[in-house]
Structures are given as structure tokens and as C-alpha cells.
């Protein structure tokens, strides 16, 4: 589960984000005011149009600040009643029906059943809820205007802001209740769907190893096959049984003896549903020449998320961790990685590529290679570096070397400070020798020449703790809830001035645009290869590639100038569309990562509301300036 754009913490993010938000808001407000005055002047002439504009602005201040909770409550209640009348229950029934039949198409033999089940329930809920609120929000107000029931509302002392807010809140209440029910049912479905146990196939138990006087011989065997898998079983000489981890889980075994008969009872699946709390470090690379660089080698992958290190060379991917405290890791450092392999020759595809993980003290330069392992494509690798490191493969003391922009070479620690005797010991203490003031580096190397490892910053982490899966599961639904609120907001806003079907299409358009808002932002900042939209058209027509410079000339200048204008527009569009992908926590839950409150829950939640507020205000203005009886 790659996290391509890590989020800053709430405290670091808030001030600049709030300023950015205010800037966008001020620009949009000014643009809307200018447009409003222009339309007013065009329609009613200068004096009257200007007066109407001023009056609208004056009214808006009162309408947006003096809303009556009782009226908003009444309109919310009406929206809830209307939704019930529109048979939202059918969606709920459909959800239950999908779950009932899910057993048929959810492959029990999948080797990651938890991921499959979790992805399924989260996506099923997302699609159903978003579709439901899309229809509710986009069609409600136009239906009221068409049936003229709105006329009995707006002839009461009801502000347009109350009509819009009441609608948004009403559908939010309906959606929230449905989502809460769906989440509980989904939880039960997942737990029940994954729950299983095995029986030991007694005939498969065979003695193994040498017999020891006075002790029973260890045995190995198999459990029976349930849900498409079986576990290998070990019984040690004391009679205690263990099973291998299969399909992402294992089982406890209770052994009971009566006379000379032994029975083994397996418990439910363990570690199948988890919420790991990762601690991320900062990545840098070491080049083939042994210099510190920000990026590794580009192997031609279009996806820039990972960069690569060459095997059989000093190249390494280095993660620097801070705040690694002994009290947080009493058992040692649990490392988890998820690296990509780029093969320049196929070799034995069944076999992985050999790599190594080392720990380095950034202060002393002591580097201990703790594990040589076989890395396989897309297979997470886990390792616990123990407190006492004895079985290491090599140790060294090295400085990291970095060139300053002025061309000077800096060593850290300075080479004359290196104490090479540090590496001569047979045993290292993790926190005593390798962690300095909470700082430690983990080095990943590829040991096979001509093969490459690819890594990005979130590809190696320390498993700092485990949060409860249940809480994480419901946090995943908070993401759906935020998406739901945004769809309702946009749906109601568009429905204040568009007909139902058009409002629905506009909302879908906003959602799709929102999914690509990251790309739009990069496009507006000129960070996309091939230039802006106009330059891209020239390249398309001339069949130019993205990298070559366009021929200088009037056409190129004109296209680039037009792109500057277009990029301004794209910047605005990218900023007014909510980044929907940011609210999708399905992968977090499915891959078993804890959705941390700060920043992964708090920042998107604040962002969602930062979008909802202007959407609500826009909806108010559209309704306020609309003749509802026409």
C-alpha cells in the first residue's frame, strides 16, 4: 500500500493550509462578487444592478450568520422524512442482499482473505452510500421546485441558507444512520466470514528429529483444509503444538491428554485482522560511488514513487529514524518492508533476489549487517532486530559522504573521528551501540549484481505498535462518511440552480475531477512533462515526445502563454474540487495499517469541512438569487 504523498502532521499543516484556504476563498469570493455585479448591471442597468448587488451582499451576512436552529431543524427533519418516503431502505436491503450472495463470489481460496473481505465490504458500502446520497441530494430541491412545494417554504420567514443547510444536514443524517448500520453489519460479516478453525489430521503426524532419552520425539503434520488452506503443524518434545502462518494468520493450539491419547484443539485465526502502527523514517540513497544522494537510479519506470539501487555495489537505500526509544521497543526493532525488484535478467523467477538489511549508528558510523534475505516481488518482509545482536554477517564503521552544492565533500561523522575498533566486537547492543539519541539508520542493499531494488520512503517502517482492528475498521468508515458529506454538499449546491439530472451529472463530474485533483494541481504548477494543455495539443498533433523542447517560434510562444492562463484556471479548479482519493481508507484497513488520528484522520476531516463550507455558501447564493417560482 504505497503512500505516494505523505501528509504533514496537523500542527505543521494547519497554519499554511488555513492561509491557503483563505487565499482561495478570498479569490473566489472576489471573483463571485465581480461576476454578480456584472450580471446585475447587465440585467438591470448600472444603478439598479449595483444596488441589487449590494443588497444581496448585505442580506448574505445576515442569512449566513443568523440562521435559526429550529428552522434548520425543521428542514432537516423534512429531508429525512422525504428520504424515507423515497425508500432509502431499499438501498439497505440491497446491501444485505449483496452480503448474502457475497459468499459465492468472494474466493475462499484467496491467499489474503482478510484483504479481500475488507476491500469488498468497504467498496460495496462506498458505492452504495455515495450513489444513494448522490440521487437524494441532486434530485430533492429540483423536485420541490417542480412540484412547487418550495413555494410554501420560501413564503415563510425561511432564509435560503436554512433551506440549503437543512437539506445538507437531513441527507447527512440519513446517510450517517445507514452508514453506521452498514458498518456494523460489515464488521460482523468480516469477522464471521474469516472465522474458522482446523482439526489436526492425526494420521499426518510423523516423528521427526532424533529421540531424546525420557522425552517424546518432536512431530510434524498437517491440519485439515478449511477455506482453501491448511497449516503445517509442529509438536515439540514437551507436547506443545504450533502451526505455521498461512494466508496471513496462525492458530493457537491447546493440547489435552487423556491416558495415552492426545487431542489438539485449534483456536480461531490470529493476526489476521490487524492495525499496525508504522513509524516512518526519512529516505535517502547511497549511489554506486558511495555518495549520499536524494534519489536512486531511474530504471525507466513511469511511476516515480520508487527509485532504485544497483545490486553488488555500495548503493543502498537508507531510512533515518528519529525518536526510537528503548521503552517503545523493548523486544527489539520490528522492521517491515515492501520493496520492488527490477530484474535486468530473469534468472530463476521462482527464486527471489538476495539483499541485506543493516543497522547503522549515525553518530559513530557503526554499520552492522543483521540479515541477508531473499527478497520476492510484492511480498512483504518482516524482521525483528533483537536487543542483543550476535548472529550478524558483517560489521563496519563508515561515514556517509555528501557533496555540498558548492562542491565540497562532507563526511558524517568526519573520517578522522571514526573508531574502527567498534566493528571488531562479536556482540552488539541495539540501543547501546546502534541507536544514538533515538536516531538510527536502516540500510537496504541489493547483493546480486545487475539486479535492482526499488524503494520509496514508506516502503520500510518500524512496527511501532498495534492498534485495535475494530477501531481501525470503523475509522475506515469515517473516510466513506467524509466522501458522503462532500457528495451531499456538491449535490445540494448544484441542485439549487440545475435540474435534477444535470445536478447529478455535475456532482459526478466534481467527484471525477476530485479523483484527479492531484494531477490537476501538478498540471497547474507546470510539473507535468509535456507542458500545459495547449502545449500538449501541439505535441499530440505533431507526434512529438514529452521530453524534447518544442521548436521556438510564434506558435510555441503562443501555446506557452495560453498555458499560463490555462494553468491559472486549472489551479482554481484543482483547488475547488475535493481530493476524493484522500478520503479513501479502504487500503489502510485492508492492508492492516492503523489510520492515525494525526494526520491521516484529522487532516482529511478538516479538509472535507474546508470544502463543505464554501460549497454551502455557494449553494446559498445560487438559491437566493434564483426565482423559485419560475
Amino acid at each position, binding site marked *: 500500500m504505497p503512500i505516494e504523498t505523505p501528509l504533514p502532521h496537523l500542527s505543521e499543516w494547519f497554519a499554511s493550509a488555513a492561509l491557503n484556504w483563505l487565499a482561495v476563498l478570498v479569490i473566489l469570493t472576489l471573483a463571485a462578487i465581480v461576476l454578480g455585479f456584472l450580471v446585475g448591471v447587465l440585467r*438591470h442597468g448600472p444603478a*439598479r444592478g449595483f444596488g441589487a448587488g449590494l*443588497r444581496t451582499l448585505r*442580506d448574505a451576512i445576515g442569512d449566513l450568520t443568523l440562521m*435559526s436552529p*429550529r*428552522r434548520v*431543524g*425543521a*428542514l432537516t*427533519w*423534512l429531508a429525512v*422524512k*422525504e428520504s424515507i*418516503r423515497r425508500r432509502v431502505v431499499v438501498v439497505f436491503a440491497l446491501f444485505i442482499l449483496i452480503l448474502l450472495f457475497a459468499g459465492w463470489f468472494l474466493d475462499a481460496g484467496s491467499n489474503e482473505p482478510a484483504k479481500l473481505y475488507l476491500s469488498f465490504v468497504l467498496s460495496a458500502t462506498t458505492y452504495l452510500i455515495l450513489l444513494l446520497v448522490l440521487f437524494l441530494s441532486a434530485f430533492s430541491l429540483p423536485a420541490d421546485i417542480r*412540484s*412547487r*412545494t*418550495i*413555494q*410554501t*417554504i*420560501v*413564503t*415563510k*420567514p*425561511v*432564509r435560503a441558507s436554512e433551506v440549503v443547510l437543512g437539506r445538507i444536514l437531513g441527507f447527512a443524517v440519513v446517510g450517517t444512520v445507514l452508514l453506521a448500520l452498514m458498518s456494523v453489519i460489515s464488521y460482523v460479516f468480516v469477522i464471521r466470514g474469516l472465522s474458522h478453525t482446523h482439526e489436526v489430521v492425526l494420521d499426518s503426524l510423523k516423528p521427526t528429529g532424533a529421540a531424546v532419552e525420557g522425552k517424546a520425539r518432536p512431530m510434524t503434520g498437517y491440519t485439515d483444509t478449511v477455506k482453501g488452506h491448511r497449516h503445517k503443524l509442529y509438536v515439540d518434545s514437551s507436547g506443545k503444538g504450533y502451526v505455521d502462518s498461512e494466508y496471513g494468520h496462525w492458530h493457537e493450539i491447546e493440547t489435552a491428554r487423556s491416558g495415552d491419547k492426545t487431542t489438539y484443539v485449534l483456536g480461531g485465526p490470529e493476526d489476521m485482522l490487524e492495525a499496525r502502527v508504522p513509524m516512518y523514517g526519512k529516505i535517502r540513497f547511497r549511489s554506486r560511488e558511495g555518495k549520499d544522494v536524494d534519489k536512486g537510479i531511474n530504471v525507466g519506470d513511469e511511476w516515480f514513487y520508487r527509485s532504485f539501487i544497483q545490486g553488488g555495489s555500495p548503493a543502498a537505500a537508507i531510512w533515518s529514524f528519529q525518536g526510537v526509544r528503548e521503552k517503545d521497543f523493548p523486544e527489539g526493532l520490528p522492521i517491515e518492508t515492501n520493496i520492488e525488484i527490477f530484474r535486468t535478467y530473469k534468472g530463476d523467477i521462482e527464486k527471489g533476489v538476495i539483499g541485506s538489511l543493516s543497522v547503522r549508528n549515525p553518530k559513530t558510523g557503526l554499520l552492522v549487517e543483521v540479515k541477508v534475505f531473499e527478497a520476492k516481488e510484492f511480498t512483504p518482509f518482516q524482521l525483528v532486530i533483537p536487543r542483543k545482536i550476535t548472529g550478524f554477517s558483517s560489521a563496519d564503521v563508515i561515514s556517509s559522504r555528501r557533496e555540498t552544492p558548492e562542491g565540497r565533500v562532507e563526511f558524517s561523522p568526519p573520517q578522522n573521528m571514526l573508531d574502527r575498533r567498534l566493528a571488531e566486537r562479536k556482540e552488539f547492543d541495539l540501543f547501546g551501540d546502534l541507536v544514538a539519541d533515538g536516531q538510527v539508520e536502516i540500510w537496504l542493499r541489493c547483493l546480486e549484481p545487475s539486479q535492482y531494488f526499488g524503494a520509496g520512503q514508506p516502503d520500510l517502517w518500524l512496527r511501532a505498535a498495534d492498534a485495535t482492528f475494530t477501531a481501525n475498521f470503523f475509522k475506515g468508515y469515517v473516510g466513506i462518511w467524509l466522501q458522503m458529506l462532500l457528495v451531499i454538499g456538491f449535490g445540494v449546491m448544484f441542485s439549487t440552480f440545475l435540474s435534477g439530472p444535470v445536478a447529478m451529472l455535475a456532482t459526478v463530474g466534481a467527484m471525477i475531477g476530485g479523483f484527479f485533483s492531484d494531477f490537476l494541481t501538478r498540471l497547474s504548477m507546470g510539473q507535468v512533462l509535456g507542458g500545459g494543455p495547449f502545449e500538449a495539443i501541439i505535441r499530440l498533433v505533431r507526434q512529438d515526445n514529452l521530453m524534447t523542447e518544442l521548436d521556438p517560434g510564434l506558435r510555441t510562444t503562443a501555446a506557452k502563454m495560453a498555458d499560463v492562463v490555462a494553468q491559472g484556471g486549472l489551479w482554481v479548479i484543482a483547488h475547488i474540487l475535493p481530493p476524493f482519493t484522500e478520503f479513501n481508507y479502504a487500503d489502510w484497513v485492508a492492508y492492516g495499517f492503523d489510520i492515525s488520528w494525526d494526520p491521516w484522520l484529522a487532516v482529511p476531516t478538516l479538509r472535507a469541512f474546508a470544502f463543505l463550507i464554501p460549497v454551502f455558501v455557494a449553494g446559498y447564493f445560487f438559491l437566493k438569487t434564483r*426565482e*423559485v*417560482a*419560475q
Partner: protein
Amino acid sequence: MQSSEVVIETRSLSKVYRDFWGRQKVRALKALDLEIQRGEIFGLLGPNGSGKTTTIKLILGLLFPTSGQALVFGRDATDVKKNERIGYLPEESYLYRFLNAEETLDFYGRLFNMAAPLRRQRTADLIDMVGLGWAKRRQLREYSKGMTRRIGLAQALINDPELIVLDEPTTGLDPIGCREMKDLILRLRDEGKTILMCSHLLADVQDVCDRIGILYQGELQELGRVDSLLKVRDVTEVRAAGLSEACQAEIREVIERHGGQVQTIGNPTTTLEELFLHIIRESEAHPGRRVRGGAGDAH
């Protein structure tokens, strides 16, 4: 009733309906000047498409004027604050059909920011007044047209309004319902409320309205007190009683001579229907603003 306070005032109020491209479609109202005083029942008359409903919608702020201004209680018609003192019964009762009568009235009460005990009291009183106590828990979708009109009227009165705007109030009511509605309108007037209504049913207007305005093709053709407008000035009407059969043939010359008792002598009145048709025919023959007849606007 004779208070001089102006409740509704329109100044050169005009409305042009335009299409999506801003092209003029219909000129629905042309420079309407109108004043409606506190405590009177004012009727707007006119054939279909004459601008009655447009006028009402402009006064309620449901439409925005193309030019001119509509003021209600001295406030601009688009100001929502004025609505606190207005009750509106639309042409058809545009109510939420999935609510029952009690829920409907409670909902509209909440829109007036009324506290719960007051809402309960007003709801009970109004349901009682419009005689729907037996059906108050039934959804409005099950209501007949007459019942819907009644609950529509009840919602218009939930806030005890000072100005009541009634669009075709008797449509869909049976004769008894019509009579009750008209009695209610008169009773509301007697309580000091101002009523603006428009109707096709001229007899209803004649029965209850103090003043009327007749609109044709967006222009005000006639405005005045109903009793003055309907007075036929060049005809004398004599009503007599107790005359023998023989006398009746020569009655015009011999009433005094035969000693009959003259009960009333005066100008007869025509029906509003005749007046209405006369004005419309005249407007069709001579398009444009009509020089209003001698009835005047006086009370």
C-alpha cells in the same frame, strides 16, 4: 378597516419572462401601481394569463421584478422578514403529501420559529377550525381536493398573519365549503387582517371583496370599490311590494297614483360577471391601457 396604513404597495411593477438566452418571452405585468390598505379584502381578477398570479408571486418575493418595486409592510418583497406577518395559500395546496395534517402544521410552525407548546396549540385550533380533526393523522396523499384546500388554509394561518394572500381560495370546495371559506375570509377581515385574493369565481369575489382590480394582458384595467363599480348610474330601480295584479302593467306611471308603497328607488347594480365580461370585451376591442371608469379608487 378604514385605517390608512398601506400594507402592499407596488410601484410601476413590471415582469418580463425571458428564455434561457435572455430573449423576451412574455411581458406578464406592465407597470402595475397598486396600494392595498390594512383591513380590506382586495380581489385581483382577470382571465388566464392576465398577470394575477405573477403579481401575487412578485408581492411574495417568489419572482423578482424586471423593473419597479413591490413593498410589503414597507419592506422590499424579497426581504424574508416580511414573511413573518404573511400567510399564503397557493393556487393548489403545494404541501408535502407524505406528511399528515398535524405534521404539516407543526412543520410550518417551526419555520416560523414558534415554540413547541404554541405550535401544538395552534395546530389543534386550526385543525379544529378547518374541520379536519377526524383525518389529522392521515397522510395528505389520501386527502380529497377539498380537504387539501382546508389544510392549505390552516398552514396559511399558522402564524396568525396580518396579511393573508389567497390564490383561488374556493377552488375545489363544495358549496358548503365555499360558503365557509367566504365566511372565514370576512371574519378574518373583521379581525383586522388584510386579505389579497385572486379568483376566477366572480360570485365569490363579489360576495367578499371590498375592492377589486381587474387585470388584462398584464395591465390593470379597472380598480375600485365593488359596490361602486357595480352601480349602474343611468338606470333607476324601483322595488315595490303589495301591488295588485292589475296594477303591475301600468306600474311605472301609476305607483304614486295607486298609493302603492315604494320601498327603494335607486341605481340597480349589475353582476360582477357582467362587469368583468364588459371590461374584457372592451379591452380586446381597444388594446392598451384602459381609461378606468367612474368608480374611482375611493373607499
